[in-house]
């Protein structure tokens, strides 16, 4: 982690766009929401990290062959089209696009999972793909959409 979340927020406020979007920290965030629920000022830090990730992906400023953004993009491409995620296909795709060498290293694990019926190459899909596509296109057509962060206080134990 090159910058702490506190520093990232201050840098964002100070308009240090390139440094923020190019930082490694936003990708190390595993999205576990520990900071969001602990923050006494109720700052939705995790959702802010997602907003920074989105911006970095859109502007293409993340490190090359770096797994997280590649995973996110490939994942979206697949579920947009098929409606479901085919885990094994996504995994293989990701290996090939990032670290093909790891595919060999991890093959024994994949084989053990396959033998136990936990890795199948079958394509998962919904029936109403056209309906899903229509819904997603309708979202894309809305001008000035996308609230990025915000959403009010998410901490505490109130129900959804």
């Amino acid at each position, binding site marked *: 982690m090159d910058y702490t979340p506190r520093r990232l927020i201050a840098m964002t406020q100070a308009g240090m766009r390139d440094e923020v979007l190019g930082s490694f920290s936003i990708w190390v965030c*595993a999205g576990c929401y520990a900071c969001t629920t602990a923050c006494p000022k109720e700052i939705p830090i995790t959702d802010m990290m997602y907003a920074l990730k*989105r911006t970095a992906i859109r502007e293409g400023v993340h490190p090359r062959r770096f*797994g997280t953004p590649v995973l996110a993009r490939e994942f979206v491409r697949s579920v947009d089209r098929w409606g479901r995620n085919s885990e094994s296909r996504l*995994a293989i795709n990701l290996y090939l696009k990032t670290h093909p060498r790891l595919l060999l290293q991890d093959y024994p*694990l994949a084989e053990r999972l396959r033998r136990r019926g936990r890795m199948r190459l079958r394509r998962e899909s919904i029936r109403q793909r056209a*309906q899903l596509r229509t*819904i997603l296109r309708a979202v894309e057509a809305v001008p000035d959409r996308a609230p990025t962060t915000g*959403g009010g206080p998410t901490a505490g134990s109130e129900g959804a």
Partner: protein
Amino acid sequence: MNYAYYPGCSLKGSSNSYEESLLAVFEALGVGLDELDDWNCCGATAYAAVDQMKAFAMAARNLALAEETAEGPAPVDLVAPCAGCYMTLLKTQRYLNRHRAVADTIGGALEAGGLHYDGRVRVRHPLDVLVNDVGLERVADAVIRPLPGLRVACYYGCLLVRPFATFDDQHNPMSMDRLMTALGAEPIDWPMKTRCCGGSCCGGPLVGTIREAGLRLISVLLREAKRRDADVLVTACPLCQFNLECFQERVGREFGEPVELTIGLFTQVLGLALGLDERRLGIHRMLRWDLPELAAIDGGGARVCA
């Protein structure tokens, strides 16, 4: 009792043992789960890193489909066993309720697809259903093979209680511990219940995105559970289960200290106590399943801890 059921992609793939054990224990307890017809991926957390509004639309289609399964105005309970799906569906509801712009955009998009969502769905986790609807007394009554002396590390992970804690305490959740006590097992006291497993760093599944970070988190969790003499660590999330089980050998190699621990789903341990066959619980699919021989009990070991 019947619930709409949203399996999610993992339960149809690498975590099919979670689906098998869930369906088996719910059936044994007389609770019906009706799989939502033509459900789609919830969008998971990865979609939010690309396009948040489309991610909401992915989740909202499922909410609309669930609502269609029952006439209004009664609420519809939708059971989502994967902690990732569970949080994503809750988060979508939260934004739909609180943000006019989100509600308008998503409402319009659903309409374009011939769907409509009123907000009648209640997203539930099976752990919540077991503890709060079925009730621990009924669970304890159904136990025919209690698990005395089985030391269980109850691991809740991140997204089951964060950022929304709908049915348990956010910082020290206890529902799984109470369930294990009802089975006669011994939940261990440990401070890592809601620590991130690093799944999204290691994950994907299998492929490392930031593997070093992920492996370190796994190592910390497993070593602490072992130090406290846990026989098994149980999770309520397919991603935690996969991550903590599949990378054990690599953690051992990287950190020079082997950590071997059985990582199960809470539904599998529950199923054993209910006397269900191991195959129906998907136990033959686990990479490691090594529980100690439990002492025979005289006079029933199951008890309920309020």
